């Protein structure tokens, strides 16, 4: 576009930019303003000297992070656990929203919606205790059933083979209801005429879901998938910390729990900033890649 044409284009979109202005000001002040803080990751931050006066240490903080004996193991755990959380945790709320949408009984629909979002409001401090109790080999209902059926009880929470599955499934269980709201909203936006037309063709419910509901909410699904791809590197500290035990360290210790105990000892901002920056760069790469792939098949990407 030539400069003049660009100017014209801005002029013709002036109302849009008037609307956009407060948001840009907001991002300028509250996000770009403090962003110089990322520099702390490359410094030995001194309280009284601030970012301006603290000495530069180059990549020392990153070397310390990557050089830890357990870093490789912890990074691998983080990626594996969150990859499965992403895949299953992404599909589950869509499935739930679609299922709720099929229900015709109003009270049942409302009750399921309200009840399924309850666990989101209880913190992991509270929930973890219940999960451990639920899976207890001596008194948990799961093992009582297993024993009843003639199997040996399994101490699931301390079995390396089970631990990641427990993390993934309890995470989904806690958040599925809450996450499904956005898809319910998307479904609510579907033009009912589309369903009316399909009635005439006499297609089954599953076909309706597959050919009408899913494609109609695809824009939301695609953007959610792209944005969530970054979460592969961001684990849920509260969940892992409260469920973690000595026997499953090697499969369950993740970046946040690992750096938490480091940070406790170190009172070290620079190290924490380096961890944060590392995670964010990885997340950015993931999101951009996901966006790139999605742009091949859909218009509903970020850019």
């Amino acid at each position: 576009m030539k400069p003049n044409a660009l100017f014209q284009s801005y002029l013709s979109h002036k109302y849009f930019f008037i609307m956009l202005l407060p948001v840009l000001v907001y991002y300028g002040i509250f996000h770009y303003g403090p962003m110089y803080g990322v520099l702390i990751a490359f410094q030995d931050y001194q309280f009284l000297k601030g970012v301006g006066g603290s000495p530069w240490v180059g990549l020392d903080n990153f070397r310390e992070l990557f050089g830890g004996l357990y870093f490789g193991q912890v990074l691998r755990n983080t990626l594996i656990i969150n990859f499965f959380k992403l895949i299953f945790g992404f599909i589950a709320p869509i499935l739930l929203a679609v299922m709720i949408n099929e229900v015709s009984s109003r009270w049942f629909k409302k009750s399921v919606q309200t009840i399924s979002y309850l666990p989101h409001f209880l913190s992991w401090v509270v929930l973890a205790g219940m999960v451990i109790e639920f899976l207890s080999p001596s008194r948990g209902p799961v093992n009582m059933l297993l024993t009843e059926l003639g199997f040996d009880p399994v101490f699931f929470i301390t079995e390396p083979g089970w631990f990641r599955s427990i993390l993934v499934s309890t995470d989904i269980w806690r958040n599925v209801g809450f996450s499904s709201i956005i898809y319910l909203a998307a479904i609510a936006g579907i033009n009912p005429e589309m369903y009316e037309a399909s009635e005439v063709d006499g297609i089954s419910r599953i076909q309706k879901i597959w050919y009408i509901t899913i494609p109609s909410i695809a824009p939301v699904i695609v953007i959610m998938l792209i944005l969530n791809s970054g979460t592969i590197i961001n684990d849920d500290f509260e969940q892992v910390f409260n469920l973690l035990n000595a026997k499953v360290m090697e499969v369950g210790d993740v970046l946040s729990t690992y750096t938490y105990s480091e940070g406790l000892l170190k009172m070290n901002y620079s190290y924490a900033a380096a961890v944060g920056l590392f995670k964010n760069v990885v997340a950015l790469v993931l999101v951009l890649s996901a966006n790139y792939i999605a742009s091949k098949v859909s218009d509903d990407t970020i850019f």
Partner: protein
Amino acid sequence: MTKAGKLTGVSLAVALSMGLVAGCGGNGGNNEAGGQQTPTSSGTASQQAQQTEQAKPISLEWLGYDSYGQPNPNSSVIKMVEEKFNAKFDFWYVDSQKWEDNLNVRLASGEMPDVLKITNRQNIPKYISQGIISPIPMETLEKFAPTYVKFLNENYPELWDGVMYEGQIYAIPMTNLNGTYPTVVIWRKDWLDNVGISKIPETIAEYEEAFTKFRNEDPDKDGKKDTYGLSDFALPNILGAYGYPGISDFKGASKGDASKSVQFTMKDGNVVLTSIQPEMKEALTLLQKWYKAGLIDPEFLTSENTTGYWADSQAFYNSKIGITGMSMFYHWRNELNPDIPDDAGGGQYKAFKESVPDGEAVFGVPAVGPNGASGTPMWDTASHPIAITSKAMENPEKLELLLKMIEAACTDYEYYLTLTNGEKGVDWTLDGDKFVNLTATDTLAEANVKGKNVLNAKVSYDPFIKQRDKFDYEFADKYGKISGYSAVFVPTLEEFSKYSNTLNKLTVDAYFKIITSDVDPSAYFDEYVANFRANGGDELEKAADKAYKEMVGQ
């Protein structure tokens, strides 16, 4: 009382005289006028000094407390202290659960209190290098707080080490009387009786016999084989029969708290790391045998404390195990205080009796091992020291005031009670010699809000505490004086923060694996030790030894 009365009188006189001469009622901000006028209206020099002080209170930004709750500046305790010392307190509130996060961000943005509690002594060098805290000359300490310094020198001389840096004192040590009593050993007496053991077990062999019978002879008489000997709380006690327990808190260490497994002790005159000592190999071999025999509850991995307060042992309350520990004498006090109506004993004893009304819980002693070693881990005898910040040092009166407050807290019993327990007559009274707590149900947060445990600057003066909690400490001296292990304090090391996380993980992995799996204990332990040494253990041990010897002047 009389003192306060006198002060009020003087301040009234000052206000009156200033009001007359300067023609203004308030004496708050206008010190110059006050200063000019005092000579004419007062006789002696000392009175003059007092009056100038009166006109200009020393203000202190106070973070010399645990800050479980935010003190109400108008509470009677705070008002009383302000009046007594002609001071004005501004309280910092720093969430006690997220202390470092919260405090650091404020320090980092250049804000500073005057009086700072140091929650983690490891941070002292960091505070010094960042210019946050200032050295306190010994002469000043001795001049303004002689009683307290004497108390420290006589009872806790080792605490000075923890607050020294390059030969200077950077904080005032605070003491923890409970740290002088090892953590307890609690047995199910009724179980011992049921399996025919009349003497509380003392040696490892006796422990083993009791555990084996607890496992196999149905001590709770419910006809089911659902009982075990021990779970995680008693493990350090067993390790202690062989030497310094390599892990002093299994739950804490497995949650990543390195201070629970990376500890130092003295051996042949050198500082050594406890978890890699060969005695631990023997101890772990025994525990593996016990685990295989079913004496250890497999659910020790998720701890016997499954809900609530940390000292609660649901496994013990539910008659699943026959021994517990980890906690203090006051948690399990099983003799009732006749002076407290409805006394039900210590909190955990009470919970136990509510769950098992017919059960009997008694104090035991740590297991004695084949070589005569025994003991449970002890808490730190140091509590959080109190420092004065570099900002506060700009006005020497502030340090003086802090020290005077500390001195007063250990010279005047009733004043001390007011600081720690609140207003006399409202929160507590004295019935003859006996201290009666009227608000014993206040939680730590509520206590702080009322101004309790705020302005004592963490001073915990043993003679006063023993006088106040006479029954408790007599009880403690009767049952709690068992053998215990306390760690050697080593000055802060760069190596500690660098390696301890990794070392803790290695230790937790090795200890749990040896106990719960079929690995050859001896070979696996040796492999662990080699690994431990190669990944920072050696470096840390050498640095600690060197630093310790420098500190004690060898």
